[in-house]
Structures are given as C-alpha cells and as structure tokens.
C-alpha cells in the first residue's frame, strides 16, 4: 500500500457537510421556483378550468359575465401573430445573413449595429409600445390602432431575438461547408441559399417560435398603441381594430366583480388558454430542434 492508501476513503467530515449543505440550498431554490409556479398554475386551473369551454372560445366579450367569451381576443391574437411572423422572418433572417455572411466586422458601423441589436433585445417592451404609437399608429404611418400596427409593433419588439437566434444558427454551419460550395464555383449567394440557409433552418425556426411565444404574451405595448378591450367582432383585415388575449385578460382582471358578474374566472380561463398555446409553441420549438438540428 502506498502512502496515499488512506486518501481514497471518504472526504473529511467538514467538506462533506459543506457539500451537502450546498446541495440542499440549491434544491431549496429549485423547489421554491417550481413550487411557486405550481401554486400559480393550481390557482388558475381551479378558477378557470371549468370556464374553458367551447362556448367561452366562441363567444364575444360581453358585460354579462356568463355570456362573455374570448373569441375576438383569440382571433385578434392569431392575426397579430401572423403579421408579426410575416415581418420578423424575412427581416430577421436577412439581417442575420448580412451580419454573419457579408458584414466586414472590422468596420465600425457593423460593430455598432451588432451592439445595438444586443441592446435592443433588452429594451423594456413599453418603449416599443411608445415607438409603435408614435410611428405606426400616429405619426408618419398613421395606421391607427389596427392589426397591422399591433403586429408590426410586436415584431419590432421581438426582432432582436430572431436576429440573434438566426445568427447563432447560421454561425453553427461550419466554414468548411461554405468553402466546399464556393470551391465548386458556386457564388456566395448560391452558397448561402443552398447550403447555409437549409442547414440553419431548424435553428432559425426555433428562434422564430420562441420570439412569437414572447410576443403572444405581451400586453404593455398593445395597451399603449390603443388596442381595443371590448370588441364584438373578429378582425377582417390588416386595417381592422383588434383586441388580443393578454388585453382581454387584463381587462377582465381590472373590472370590478360582484356576485352577478364575476369576471375573475373568465380571466383565469383565458390565462389557461394562453398558457396551453405557449406550451404547444415551446414544445414544437423543442421538437424541431431535436428532430432536425444538424449534427456536424
């Protein structure tokens, strides 16, 4: 036996105590956050589950709580999400391609753009609401508080997320693939279009879905740009007025409830619906990533 023979046994008691203590602390932190989330969920499910019926999903808002539903809000949310996606996908991907494939990073203006995009991702959403109000709803574009303005405003808000995710996906394509393609006489655009983009689509799609799932829950910017609260029709076009799920929830929660008209369960049901939507979107994002992500 060597002189180290004794060292393989257990660590000194004081070290083991520290180790255990550290683990317990971490477990407690984890338990706290998961527990709070569970409590919240429980509360929402308790109040809302019984109200989340087909009737609820297919009725318009109403002063009378038993007749009120979220149809206008659901369709409004769908409309603004479609506008938002139609805006962020081309703009976000094109920006990411420019920054990754074309921009000369030794130029100050390209670095400035990069730093700004990082910063924009952390600007409070209400600021985007003010921007939307000043430039989209009123001001130069004067669209009014319509679907197009709502979708574009949320699009601006989540654009940095899409750009950052797309850049990461594009950067994950190894340079050797680009070299292989260029060495065959492909142009830079052909290389991007036929090699780099197809290989990075799963990453880009994941980023877009996560961006949309952030946009779908945003309330503040929509309130600022003046989305309607009680509406008895679905949007019919880009220039229709609209309401959206978070707005509807906010409205129901802020109304005074009494025995005749209790709006709180309605809010809970709408929250539940929104959470199910979010869960679905995130699952699709995870599935996409696991199923299609290219292993190099």
């Amino acid at each position, binding site marked *: 036996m060597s002189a180290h023979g004794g060292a393989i046994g257990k660590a000194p008691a004081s070290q083991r105590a520290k180790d255990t203590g550290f683990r317990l602390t971490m477990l407690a932190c984890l338990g706290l956050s998961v527990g709070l989330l569970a409590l919240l969920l429980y509360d929402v499910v308790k109040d809302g589950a019984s109200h989340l019926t087909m009737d609820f999903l297919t009725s318009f808002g109403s002063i009378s709580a038993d007749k009120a539903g979220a149809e206008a809000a659901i369709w409004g949310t769908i409309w603004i999400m479609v506008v938002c996606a139609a805006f962020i996908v081309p703009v976000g991907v094109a920006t990411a391609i420019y920054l990754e494939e074309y921009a*000369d990073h*030794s130029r100050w203006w390209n670095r400035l753009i990069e730093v700004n995009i990082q910063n924009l991702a952390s600007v409070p959403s209400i600021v985007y609401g003010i921007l939307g109000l000043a430039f989209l709803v009123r001001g130069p574009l004067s669209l009014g508080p319509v679907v197009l303005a709502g979708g574009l405003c949320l699009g601006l808000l989540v654009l940095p997320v899409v750009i950052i995710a797309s850049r990461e996906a594009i950067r994950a394509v*190894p340079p*050797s*693939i*680009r*070299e*292989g*393609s*260029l*060495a*065959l*006489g*492909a*142009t830079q655009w*052909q290389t991007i279009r*036929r*090699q780099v983009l197809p*290989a990075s689509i799963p990453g880009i799609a994941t980023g877009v879905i996560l961006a949309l799932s952030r946009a779908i829950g945003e309330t503040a910017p929509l309130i600022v740009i003046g989305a309607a609260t009680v509406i008895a029709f679905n949007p019919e076009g880009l220039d229709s007025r609209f309401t959206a799920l978070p707005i509807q929830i906010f409205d129901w929660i802020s109304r005074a409830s009494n025995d005749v008209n209790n709006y709180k369960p309605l809010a809970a049901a709408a929250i539940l619906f929104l959470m199910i939507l979010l869960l679905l979107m995130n699952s699709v994002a995870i599935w996409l990533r696991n199923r299609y992500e*290219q*292993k*190099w």
Partner: protein
Amino acid sequence: MAEHVTEPEDKQREAAPAGGVGIPDQGARFSRDGETEAEPRRPREAIFQLEKVVVSYGPKPAVRDVTFDVGRNEITALIGPSGCGKSTLIRCLNRMNDLIPGARVEGRVLYHGEDLYAPNVDAVEVRKRIGMVFQKPNPFPKSIYDNIAFGPRVLGRKQNLDETVERALTQAALWDEVKDRLKTNAFGMSGGQQQRLCIARCLAVNPDVILMDEPCSALDPISTGKIEDLMMELKREYSIVIVTHNMQQAARVSDKTAFFTVELASDDDHRTGRVVEFDDTEKIFTNPADSRTEAYVTGKVG
C-alpha cells in the same frame, strides 16, 4: 474515360495525351503501370505559371519567392514542413484566399497564360475551372446524390444529371460502394468514402485542374491507396496539384515536386515559407540540388 464529355470551354484538353508528359521513365521506383512511352512526347504545357509569388496575411509575407510551373496532365506535389505555406499557396491557385480578410497575393499567377488576379477575373469563374479537395472531408449535409449534383446544379448544367453523378462516382471509384444508397445522407459514409465523395463532387463540375490539400491525412492506408490510384487515373484527364506530408506518397504519385522550407526572421520570429527547390520528383528524391531538400526527403529533419 474515352466517352468523357468535355465542356466547350475546355476543348484544349482533348488534345492532351494520356499518361505523364515529359518525365523520363527511369528507375524502377518511379515506373508506373500501364504507361507506355510509345506515344510521341509533346512539349510540356504549363497550366499554371507562378512568378515570384508572395502571399501575406499581415504586414509580413507568409510565403514568398514561389516560382514554378504546373504542367498539363501532371501531378505536382508540394512538400515541406508545417507552416511553410503550402496550404496558403495552393489556396491562391483557385482564389480561395479571397475569402480570408487581409490575405494579399503579389507576384504573378498565370493560368493558361492569363493573370488569375487581374481585375477583370471573377473568382467564381476561376473556381468553376479549378476544383479543390480539402484536408478534412467536407460533405454537404445532403444525400450522396445531391452532394454530387450540387456543383452541376449551381452551374446550371441540369441536363443528364443522373449520368453526371454516375460518371463522377465511377471516376472516383465509389460507384459500386454507393450505387444502392444514393439517396442516403453522405454523413453516414466512412471518412475514406467521404473523401472520395468530395473528389467525385469536384469531378462532377468537370474542372481543368484539381487542387488537393492533404487529401489523405485523415485516412487509413487502404483508403489512401485508393485515392492514390484514383489520382494516377485522373491525371490522364486532369492536372493535379497536391499538398502532402507523406514523402512516399509524393514519390509514388507525383511527376514534379516543389520543396518548401520555412525561415525564421532573426528579429521578430516571423516565419516565412519559400520554395527551395522545384524539379522532377525523381530528382528531388534521388539527387536533390539543395542540401535542405535532401535532409528533408531522407527524413533527417522534420
């Protein structure tokens, strides 16, 4: 190979004789199977003429004083210690260095007598004619078929794609191994197969010259042997420039050899590569003019 379809732009190649040009076939070590010297010998025709080429990535050159010719239907080997600029130089020949910010080429690189770096020369056009195989196999994340078809497709040569793919894979001695799984992903192939796929991919666009940067360094001896046989076969139609660290390989396959060395600047440790000797492979390996070449090829220095 007789039915090989030549593109209109490279008519000249048809005139090229099969087999090595201008290399006296002495010494058993350098004799090649199936090659007869019966054909009348033509004057050696240069595909590339390099004149005092200097390539730099920064203020100081990475490689300088490169002057040699690459002949038609020859295999030209570039050998030398690590860091002497072999990759740097070979990447100049199809303007791949354009992709590296700050890389500069001085001196003259003539391709069929035309300056490759003249302002009116388009790098994309250059790369259509001068193919490249890289050190690490780099198949595209697509099916075997789509890997080969990618080049012809982007060049707009979409007729008879199936034939083109089959011919390229056959030339690269890969057809029999993969003909039943053309639609499967190329990432499922072995490293040696992937490298031959990359060679086939390069052949499918029908280049004039093939540049290979250590194509066998990641391969086992059997795959290496296959690729060497392939090169001997390919030089009937193509001209090949190969970088290799394998002396036997250079001696076995090449007709001409350029030996590079690396010199350390006395003041700031900057390393600059340069060509010490360029000659017939046989001469470089049996009777080199420079003592540094001799020391290197006999393994006396690394």
